[in-house]
């Protein structure tokens, strides 16, 4: 896959999170590319089934495109963390550097980087969420135990997951993956957030405040730094 395809998909990932579908003018503005070239590229991406695109309707990512876009975004943000936390590079420069490096970063190295950085959850410059990996683990503990050999052997997640902090009120999800250290994981397990448990977001608050969820008949308030690290499979009802 070409670097430019990856860049386009990554841009779309960010744009469609803000508002779906994304307009071609927004893409051209974000990537600083002429609208004509964007339109041309969108036709190409649509042909390869990465995006759904019809003129004047805007662009959405297909599940296939979304997976790649999310992975690129993850690599980008992990790299930003690495550059910032380990190499002490300034926040004004990490984005550009990461943009260049992300296309060369293998999945294996990305996993090692995630482990070395102790499963970071946000990027340093704008605090955006680092998406979950696509490996079939339910917690970071298992990933650490798996060791470094044969990363290809690790089974992938069957369906894509979203962070609990991205769910809207009354959306439901099945607990799939909890990122972070064991203490938080244990507390959440004790409260009933075991894998495949159905939860419903009953209240989201403004200003990055907590979310309230219904789980096993009880209601829990989870602060943003907890909720953002709980990943669920969306349940569409």
């Amino acid at each position, binding site marked *: 896959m070409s670097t430019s395809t990856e860049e386009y998909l990554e841009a779309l990932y960010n744009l469609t999170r803000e508002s779906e579908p994304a307009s071609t003018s927004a893409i051209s503005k974000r990537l600083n590319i002429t609208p004509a070239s964007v339109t041309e590229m969108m036709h190409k991406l649509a042909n390869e089934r990465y995006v759904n695109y019809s003129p004047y309707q805007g662009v959405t990512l297909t599940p296939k495109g979304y997976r790649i876009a999310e992975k690129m975004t993850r690599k980008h943000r992990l790299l930003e963390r690495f550059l910032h936390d380990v190499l002490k590079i300034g926040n004004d420069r990490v984005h550009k550097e990461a943009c260049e490096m992300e296309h060369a970063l293998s999945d294996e190295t990305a996993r090692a980087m995630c482990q070395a950085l102790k499963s970071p959850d946000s990027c340093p410059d704008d605090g955006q969420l680092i998406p979950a990996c696509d490996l079939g683990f339910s917690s970071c503990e*298992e990933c650490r135990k798996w060791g470094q050999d044969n990363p290809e052997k690790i089974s992938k997640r069957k369906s894509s997951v979203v962070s609990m902090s991205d769910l809207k009120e009354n959306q439901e999800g099945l607990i799939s993956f909890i990122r972070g250290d064991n203490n*938080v994981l244990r507390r959440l397990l*004790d409260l009933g957030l*075991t894998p495949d448990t159905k939860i419903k977001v009953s209240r989201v608050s403004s200003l990055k*405040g907590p979310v309230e969820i219904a789980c096993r*008949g009880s*209601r829990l308030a*989870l*602060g943003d730094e*907890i909720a953002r690290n709980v990943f669920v499979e969306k349940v569409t009802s």
Partner: protein
Amino acid sequence: MANIASCHTTTQKKIPVSRNGKNLTVALAGNANVGKSVIFNQLTGSHQTIGNWPGKTVDSAKGFLDFDGYNITIVDLPGIYSLSTFSIEEIVTRDFIACEKPDVIINVIGAPVLERNLFFTLQLMEMDMPMVVCLNQVDLAESKGIKIDAARLENRLGIPVVPTVASRGQGIRELVARAIKTAKSPESVIETRPVTEGVPEELPAPGAGRRGRRGRHRRHRRGARFRGGIDAGLTALTALIDSENLDLDYPSHWVALKLLEGDTAITDLVRSKSPDVIAASESLAKQTEEVYKQPRFAAVASERYALANEIAADVQIQAVSKPSFVERLDRLTTQRVFGYVTSVIVIAGLLLWTFTVGNALSTLLSDALSFFQPVDPQISGSFWSILWNGLFGGFVAGVTLVLPFVIPFYLLLAIMEDSGILTRVAFMLDSAMHQMGLHGKAIIPLILGFGCSVPAIAATRIMGTRRERLLASFAITFAPCTARTIVVLGLVAVYVGIGWALALYAIDIIVMFAAVKVAMKVIPGDTPGLIMEMHSFKLPSLSVVLKQTWARTQSLIFLVFPLYMAGSAVVQLLYVYGILQPVSDFISPLTVSWLGLPAIAGILLIFGFVRKEMILLTMTVIFGANLAAVLTPVQLIVLALVGMLYIPCLSTVGILVKEFGWKSALAVSAANLITAILIGGIAAKILPYIV
């Protein structure tokens, strides 16, 4: 923390009650907010003692009950969700059950959240103790359309289940009767139909247990079951533990399960006695992680919850009910906009109530007490008369200036806490608290700080880490407590204007935020996230509210009062014998030159260290009633400002030392002092242009 798993090394003292005959020990265990305290109060009435667990910062309540000729000691264990050793409360509970071996455990569970409560019940059952389940809050469950078949639940669990509505005393007698019966003959209380009926026993994996003697164990282990041969492995591990004769205080199959979970305390204990057992348990854990594709502790939790879910679904019927009026009101309290309005109303209402009621009570009490003797600080006369004046003055100050404000404040706060409204405020203010390196739950100790810093700092124990507790306590040392309010009102509101008094309040709160933000950077560590149960709104229980109010007032009477009395006497004597003057002269460059205050200010501030409102009282004694004649408005404001911010009072330093040690207490005091000098100096330079 290695010793926590062993009863032989624990510091807990044994309850001096003989095990046979008519003396029984009953432990109350359960989740938070299931009405455990209400039941405890119902059972014991006023025969209670509240203290700390030996060597632990966890409240323990013990009470006594005479019932049917039995002398029953009832121990209220902390409200927890699990028996892992994640928190000190969980350790205390586990140690108590394993080491003190109560005659029977009453497991209080909340009917509205049956499944989550059963998760804890299953863990208690694993410990193989005589046990009765108290199915409480059945009325609350019914109002949500949840009906629970208690007989069926009893059957499924194989232990007695008594439905209760503790707030109305329903079912309490039966609960006690069945608990006694269970304690007396644990085996014959109920015809047991095992929880896992229909699940065939698996054979042990070949070679899993070298010296397995399965025949000795009960055929049906109650509790969670595992797939993929793990169950058989557990049975074999249990047999191995038995055959090793490890002399543990815990049942073997419970130890096996804890080893499978990877519980550090139990693992360390067993490792010191038998490495073989550890080798076997580690290999079983590895197998479990492969079968479940989850960490070992997660696999165990998942299976427990799976069983809890299955039992709950079997015994309860959930009717679809329309949200009640209370539920709709509840929704409103966390609504994006209205939630903030509610929070402001709650906090403002609390303060308004405190000052209205407090003021009335204070006037009443001081009139009554000044009848005996005037209580203004005496600064001349004989040694004995000054000593007496100081002691009595300190006492009167406690009774007339602190208690009348603090008790109504704590009363209303406890009502808000027990009803659930404060939980909503914590939810709404979580992100604001994050600015100070704290999370939403810190709002409770912070609000307490508006009454008196001492119980507020004690209340920071609800926070998880030492860092959070220290940050919250630091914030509290700046909070405008009752005594500070008196100084601000007496100096500024009376002589300069109410607007300036309010401005000082605002400045104080801004300084509090800013200081904690700085401290947050200095003290290393992360801000842990909020994990909090939002229990439903309920009518507060009078007994719980009164108990909570008393518990908080207690620390005030036992710590603040003696310090008030002794401190006042000492500082007055020091003044009379001329010891304070040199100190005051020494710091005069600071007080006079930098802060622009009269020379006497040094002495006032030393007095104020004992009790902040002494600043005001001493001044009235020295200068008479009209302070405006001696101090300029700017001086009054600066003095009040410095008085608010500088070193926390003697009692606060006392509790800081008690909770965090000398070093931290000194650091906090120094930080306060520097802040006060800085802000006070700036105010002294700027204010002349404004006032």
